[in-house]
């Protein structure tokens, strides 16, 4: 399927925009803002994992790269936002390309291992560097989003900036998905032999897709750093890797709308289970097993196929 912007999703974004009218609670807005940031991260991950079919697990590292670049430049060197954002995105693109070139020469299980190792190395390295990177204690004092003389001091203004970022990410990814770039990405998932037969240079195409998806992950990191104003290596650890993979698989691998819904739902899930310490991983694990066994295409694609299935059933003699 293509990834055009859909009306139900636009309606969902409008509803999320109206959230501050329903609740002004900083806690609720923080939860919703984080859900939107994770939605961007999941969609970036979906581009390489779902759309292009590459088993990459480097998303937590690129999320962290974007966040640390933003945090270091803005908190330690007083860089303005109009400089930190392009630097964070460019660095994500460059590191994404550099990692992709050797990593994407291997496939499947080996690619998963290489990218997972990259993620683990990232958190270990930043955790071991107490100087400018803050070590295990992380970086505090990150300024809020600010441009010119204006600064997003309130939780609501920060939330709206994250909302704008999420809308931009969704719309831009929908556009990419409906373009030749998106078709090439999907061709890699369906048949690499077929992709070669239309003249696609597999390595170059994979590197490009990997780097573009890293930019979205870095963008999520940029938003996270300014939104939370504090980061530490644990924010980008293995739990984030698993959480984002769960969002993509539960929502529907390769389904942009599904992944967005999956990300929002799974981001809110911990809030429902926070009274039961330790139960969260069990719920994620259980959900993943159930979805993979019963709805391997994901929840949203399964829901979307219901009318077609009913139609077929009705048409059957």
């Amino acid at each position, binding site marked *: 399927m293509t990834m055009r912007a859909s009306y139900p999703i636009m309606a969902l974004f409008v509803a999320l925009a109206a959230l501050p009218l329903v609740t002004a609670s900083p806690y609720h807005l923080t939860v919703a803002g984080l859900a939107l940031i994770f939605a961007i991260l999941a969609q970036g991950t979906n581009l390489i994992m779902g759309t292009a079919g590459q088993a990459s697990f480097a998303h937590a590292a690129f999320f962290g790269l974007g966040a640390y670049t933003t945090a270091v430049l803005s908190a330690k060197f007083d860089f303005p936002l109009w400089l930190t954002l392009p630097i964070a995105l460019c660095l994500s693109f460059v590191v994404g390309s550099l990692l992709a070139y050797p990593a994407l020469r291997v496939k499947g299980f080996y690619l998963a291992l290489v990218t997972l190792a990259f993620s683990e190395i990232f958190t270990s390295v930043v955790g071991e560097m107490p100087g400018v990177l803050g070590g295990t204690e992380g970086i505090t004092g990150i300024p809020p989003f600010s441009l010119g003389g204006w600064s997003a001091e309130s939780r609501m203004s920060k939330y709206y900036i994250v909302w704008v970022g999420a809308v931009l990410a969704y719309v*831009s990814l929908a*556009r990419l998905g409906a373009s030749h770039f998106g078709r090439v990405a999907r061709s890699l998932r*369906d048949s690499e032999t077929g992709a070669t*037969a*239309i003249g*696609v240079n597999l390595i170059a195409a994979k590197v490009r897709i990997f780097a573009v998806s890293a930019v979205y992950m870095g963008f999520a990191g940029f938003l996270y750093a300014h939104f939370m104003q504090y980061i530490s290596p644990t924010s980008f650890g293995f739990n984030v890797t698993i959480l984002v993979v769960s969002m993509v698989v539960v929502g529907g691998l390769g389904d942009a709308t599904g992944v967005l819904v999956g990300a929002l739902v799974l981001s809110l899930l911990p809030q429902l289970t926070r009274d039961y310490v330790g139960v969260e991983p069990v719920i994620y694990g259980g959900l993943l097993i159930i979805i993979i066994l019963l709805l391997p295409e994901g929840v949203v694609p399964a829901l979307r196929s219901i009318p077609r299935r009913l139609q077929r059933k009705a048409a059957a003699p």
Partner: protein
Amino acid sequence: MSKSPILSLADVGKSFDAVAAVSNVGFDLFEGRIYALIGPNGAGKTTLLNIISGYVGRYSGSITLRDQTIDNWTASRRVLEGMARTFQITQLFDHMTALENVMCGFHPHITQSLASVLLGLRSFMAEERALRLRAQNLLETVGAGGYANEPAGLLPFGLRRRLEVARALATQPSLLLLDEPCAGLSGAEASELGRLLQRLSGQGMCVLVVEHNMPFVLGVAEEIVVLDAGEVIAKGGSGEVRNDPRVIEAYLGEVEHGAA
């Protein structure tokens, strides 16, 4: 016929684990002509097609495309230089619609940049509209116009074959390699495909067909290359090939005996 061949094979050979799949194969293909590569099962036809299209690694001998040696070229580069192919087992993009599959085929000629896509520039919109139109026309050309919005993975076998031909044509090749294009097609569909290939060769395209369907081969091919045990045992017009005793023994004889 132009004087220099579009594709030239000289002493091409390939062995797998010391077993020769193709040896000392040499022939020239010219623009505007239809060639058939025939031979019994295991003769090395698909291996040779894979060698020509760059899907087999190192091989001996040399291949030139329009006087350029292409032995070190990847399969994708060969496509960009005007060589397109289909496969014995179709290699479609099953989760895409038939129309999107053909739109993908225009890959060598795409001009849209990431920036034009993200900014929704007119040039991007115009190219997408043009691609849709041209892809639909190609689907009509192969008789699959009514299936544009069907997922390729749900199409019946014969339609999948025709869709793959349409996708290959979208790359705008000057040399088209078809691996058993008639498999799964009805007699009428095969005849229609034959007429399409004749139209294409009339426009200057060179077509090389690997095919078991002898009535189809004898009907469309202007020149036939016969392979047996990886070697060329005969080449020429259908009359010459049919009367070649080695061919009768290796291949056509079997068919004629079988048909009798």
